[in-house]
């Protein structure tokens, strides 16, 4: 197989089966944004550090900017566009609004995906566990406190 020969990938994106022809060097971020027009996943540092491009693969947060698209064959992918139940926001999305945890908003899709994964694995995390989970997500606007408050509310826990 040569580098520019497309590779056929079948995966689930936000619950829908997608069969896509992707390039060998293509990142999952490029596939989501350019082929599926899922532009809610943001292009930030492109080196897997800032977290703005975080999506869930089989429930685990992954930096899609350094994830090979060809390698997601057979996997389940969730993006920010798939978080809400139709019109109804997820409890975490709602908590982010209620706690004014959104400022410029560019990091928010990645933040929400990382925290969604945390809350799915651990229903009732401590503040410290929330902060540790966010070690791969940078926000330059908020100073994080209102985000952690929101995550605690979504987890049904009062402020520690």
């Amino acid at each position, binding site marked *: 197989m040569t580098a520019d020969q497309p590779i056929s990938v079948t995966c689930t994106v936000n619950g829908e089966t997608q069969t896509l022809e992707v390039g060998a060097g293509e990142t999952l971020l490029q596939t989501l944004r350019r082929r599926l027009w899922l532009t809610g996943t943001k292009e930030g540092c*492109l*080196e897997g550090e800032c977290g703005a491009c975080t999506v869930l693969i089989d429930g685990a947060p992954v930096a899609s900017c350094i994830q090979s698209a060809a390698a997601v064959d057979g996997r389940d992918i969730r993006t920010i566009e798939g978080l809400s139940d139709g019109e109804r926001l997820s409890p975490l999305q709602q908590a982010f609004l209620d706690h004014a945890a959104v400022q410029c908003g*560019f990091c928010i899709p990645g933040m929400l995906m990382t925290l969604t994964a945390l809350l799915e694995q651990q229903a009732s995390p401590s503040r410290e566990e929330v*902060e540790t989970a966010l070690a791969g997500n940078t926000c*330059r606007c908020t*100073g994080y406190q209102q*985000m952690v408050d929101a995550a605690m509310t979504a987890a049904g826990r009062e402020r520690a």
Partner: protein
Amino acid sequence: MKVVGSSVQRSDGEAKVRGDAVFGADLAVPGMLHARLLRAPVAAGIIRHIDTAAAKASAGVRDVVTGADVLNERAGVAVFDNPLFATDYIAYEGEPIAAVVADTAEQAEAAIRKVELTIDAETPVATPGQALMSDARMVHPSWAEFGTVGGIDFNRDGNIVSQILLDPGDVDGAFKRADRVIEGVYQTPRQYQAYLEPKMALATFEAGRYTIQVSHQYPFRLRDRLAQVLDVPKSAVRIVGHHIGGGFGAKLDLALEPYAAVLARRARRPVMMLNNPEEERLTAPCRENATVKVRSAVLNDGTILAQDVDVVFDSGAYANNHPATASIPIFMFGSIYRVGTARIRNRMVYTNTAPTGAFRGVSGPYLVFAAERHMDQIANELGRDRREYRLAMLAEDGHKMLNGQALEELSILHKAFDLVEERAPWAEQGKGKLRGVGIAAAVWLTNPQPGQATVKLNEDGTLTVVTAATDSGSGAVTTGLRQIAAECLGISADAVTITMPDTDVAGFDAGSQGSRTTHVAGRAVYDATTGVREKVIEKAAAMLETAKEDLVIEDGVVHVAGVPEMSLGLADVAMAATFSQGPIAASGSYTTPPPPHDPSRTKGMLFSTWPTPTYHVHLAEVTVDAVTGKVTVERYIIAQEVGRTINPDAVKGQVLGGLAQGLGYTLWERVDIDAGRYVQRNFESHGLPLACDMPEVEFVLMENPEAAGPYGAKGAAEPSIVPVAAVIANAVSDAIGAPIDDIPITPEAVLDALERS
């Protein structure tokens, strides 16, 4: 009040948590081409030859341009020193040399690598110290021929971009009378804004006009600067603003827009440009690195007879907006503490490094760092308690700053010290080995520049606010302006829609900077909504056959006071008005008038007053690990005066966000320069604050409504960053018993200082 003072949610919040919000970097239009810049690979050098033939022949390429192909006049905000493309010499690493436009971004990227560049690299003028040496190479050999805005001289001199001097003439005499002279030198590095959305521009050219879609903090300045560099009337440029993925000052001036505009006109196709992450880091207008020397003439009783302050900062390769803000040191010394007299010199210096620029709290963080480290130093040398000495020196209401402007409400600072004391009694803080406490105070401004708003009553009884005010995240537009309009008319904030900026549609607005939006644009919105309100009352009075004075508007209903059944819905009033006298709308305009001052002291300064001051006291307690040198912030208290709070959660978010940026600047973030080139070249190496780095923060909000502000609001968003470096350095110095006068306070710096003590 029903709406003002409540934590209304931002109007773009739901779109942002759903991933629906379209940021500039997300834009795409049919037929758009993609362009990339070839940027200088060295910090300084002579360009011998640029060969674009291979690039032009590269797959998918539509056009390649250099300075030879376009109007390439030197231009700028203050000093006209910056061409679009370097043509004969390179002034900094990352400076644009050529642009390629192609069908895809990948093709454009491939083609710029094929531009053949012949450069004779030169030794860069890498630091302000080198630039000021008598035999220094001139960064710009033809500097004397550069034009300036309004022909202002700025006291330019070779590598000195501009300088200000405030010298009342009695300073040297005061030093002769001093019991002791206390001297300090305070050094601070650059700071990278680190917004997450890269800079972008999407340009089209149609019917003789340029349209630029962009995420930008100040669309009207962008319009004016594009008109300058493209040599077209301002009205030939339209700026359409989109969601901004962070700016913090970095998106206030030109970046990619002129290149996209030129290329779109030549290609007759829309042209999209997007910086890659490395380009961002190489070219972002970082906060300037600076050295501040402070000498104080002090009597043994603590009286400061005089201060002599000498600031040198690194402008980088071009002047940017610096000559306009160069006067800020005259507001940071002799303003809150009693100082007999003061001489202030500030020199901005060209180097072969990326141009520095605006970052939240422009100049303030390092000037307050110097001023407040120096207060600790004086107190320590006199054997005085550091807090007690500050209170003894703190001036009273009416104290005049060095520009002759009186601070009429300075007693707010006394109250702020008291409120911090209630929460964290000074005598109990910082006790124990390697534990320390720091305190600092500051006065900050609310940017006074103009804003305009048009408010129209829709035929369903809701309001639309038309403004070019931009929301780069603060919520000042998406909550604050909506709340002001809602409160003023008597409706809910949900019934107020606010436009995205468009220079063809809205009146001039000076953009998202200096905490000005709530105060200045908010006042324009308040005045406009007041006009709408009057028209509603007039129409409803005619419809209800009652006197205007008897009517009130509550919850979207106009009714006779005390007689709720004599009422009309706003939709009924709006419909009746529209089809009888015409639709109801009104406009408002505002700019803060300059406070009274003594212009003879501020000759040659573009920025001569400190409008709508706000007051701030911060306290921090830190611990230091003697083995690793790590500093941990155990406690942080902020007492901040805001005039009136429009939205408590939004204010809190600004205060916490500014603190995080201040802690990063002081403790963790790195922007090192080696021979003119940035050392940190990827995201991770900058050391930005993470969630786990943030301390518990106690925030004490102080309200003190200001007459001119909407419902008394002053600026609130910017200033929490300003005192942070001072407070933390004071606390660390206290903890280790040795002065820390440079930041960042790295573990190595702490261990070195511990060894010396």
